[in-house]
């Protein structure tokens, strides 16, 4: 172990970075291997997540009623520490955008971080183009509200209160302002699906939405909603690594207890 620590030290890698490296490195070959296996053998069965199942019903209901779907990708952006959460919200937007372009459902997506604006607009534009109606794309369907979280919440509260919204999807990085938005939605009898990774905000999500996506479930959107092979493969890779971490913890407990 001392020899290993010396090598890592010479390379300029601290102990904590080394542990992170050890967790990150197996992901690459695992993802490649599982992606190839899934392509050959088909998708493995995934456990049902009610939020994703009922989202389809909510979109159908919104389409039939002619009302709007609101999508929030959180208060994070691209290039911040919560980029992964923002990308998860973007994946859900991609699914909803495809449904909107195919059925004519009106979708309003709001962003708080301006770095997410052009990416979200691109998702909506590509969805219209994929359906063969590029002229149907409306740049104003993606709205930058405010970089300030409270002002963003106030803007979304206005949309949920006045814009005849049938379904509200809020998946991404949120803090306390989540409750301000979701409560307005709940009071207006809007079907709501919420998801975040922050354990402090999860109670708000659970209490004020119809379906809550807890923690890593938001990263599974690509597998459940879009059925993408790479996303299913990464879910499998996460399961493998999670098992490895659990075994390491158990072995560590045993070693410490017996020592």
């Amino acid at each position, binding site marked *: 172990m001392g020899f290993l620590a010396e090598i890592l030290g010479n390379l*300029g*890698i601290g102990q904590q*970075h080394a542990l*992170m490296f050890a967790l*990150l490195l197996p*992901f690459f070959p695992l*993802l*490649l291997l599982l*992606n190839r296996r899934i392509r050959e053998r088909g998708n493995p069965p995934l456990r049902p997540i009610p939020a994703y199942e009922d989202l389809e019903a909510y979109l159908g209901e919104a389409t039939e009623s002619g009302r709007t779907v609101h999508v929030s990708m959180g208060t994070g*952006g691209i*290039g911040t520490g919560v980029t*992964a959460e923002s*990308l*998860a919200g*973007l994946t859900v937007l*991609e699914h909803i955008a495809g449904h909107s372009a195919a059925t004519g459902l009106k979708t309003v997506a709001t*962003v708080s971080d*301006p*770095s997410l*604006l*052009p*990416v979200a607009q*691109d*998702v909506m534009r590509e969805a219209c183009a*994929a359906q063969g109606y590029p002229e149907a794309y409306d*740049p*104003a369907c993606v*709205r*930058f509200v405010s970089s300030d979280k*409270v*002002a963003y*919440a*106030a803007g979304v509260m*206005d949309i949920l209160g006045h814009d005849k919204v049938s379904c509200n999807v809020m998946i991404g990085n949120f803090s*306390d302002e989540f*409750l*301000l938005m979701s*409560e307005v939605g*709940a009071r207006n009898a809007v079907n709501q699906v919420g998801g975040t*990774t922050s*354990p402090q905000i*999860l*109670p*708000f999500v*659970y*209490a*004020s939405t119809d379906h809550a996506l807890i*923690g*890593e479930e938001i*990263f599974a959107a*690509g597998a459940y909603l*879009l059925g*993408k092979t*790479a996303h299913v493969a*990464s879910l499998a*890779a*996460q399961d493998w*690594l*999670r098992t490895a*971490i659990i075994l390491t913890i158990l072995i560590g407990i045993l070693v410490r207890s017996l020592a």
Partner: protein
Amino acid sequence: MRRLGRAVAVGVRRSLPMAMAMAIGALMLIDFFFDERHINALGGFFLESAVIVVAFALLLGLLNVLVVHLRRIIKREGGWFYSIALLAMALMVMVAGIPGPDNSAVVWIFDYIQFPLQAATFSLLAFFVATAAYRGLRLRSLEAVAFVLTAVVVLIGQVPVGRVLGDVVPALKDWILNVPSTAGVRGIIIGVALGTIATGVRVLMGFDRPYGGEGGSTQ
């Protein structure tokens, strides 16, 4: 010849953003883990560039605000007079901020308009927590029953009257917070960490392309 040129253009349009994202992503990853002078300098350069790009994105955001609210005013959509107020206020703050962000007018606007409004909006949270708790504590499922029982024990254990009733409830509260709650939070954090790694690795390997380009954002 024209068809060949078009095919090359499409190929470049698809591959170039992906190649750049993969290359720069790999560089930033190496910069994070290894302490090498030249790589660190290059990584620092790209980080500073990202800050500049985000600043330009803010200009795009302002343009978006203008488009959305001008359209609402022109079409006389619901709440169009609020859009006039918003654009007027935005223009006023922009003009006031021309001499600089430390200008007395800007400081006054933030101290006497922005922050009180923020505080007022955030104060609604207290009432919304109460209504959300009422909605969440309805016994609609087994997990809701567990939610209610836990909430009751922790609430009573937190307040002084809990100690008057005896030491059991505060001790139970401490156990709930230190053992199952902490275990659950740690489990969520581990799962989130793995999900974040998975998302990053997919982008690094080109499986996901959120940066757009022809062929869709993500595949």
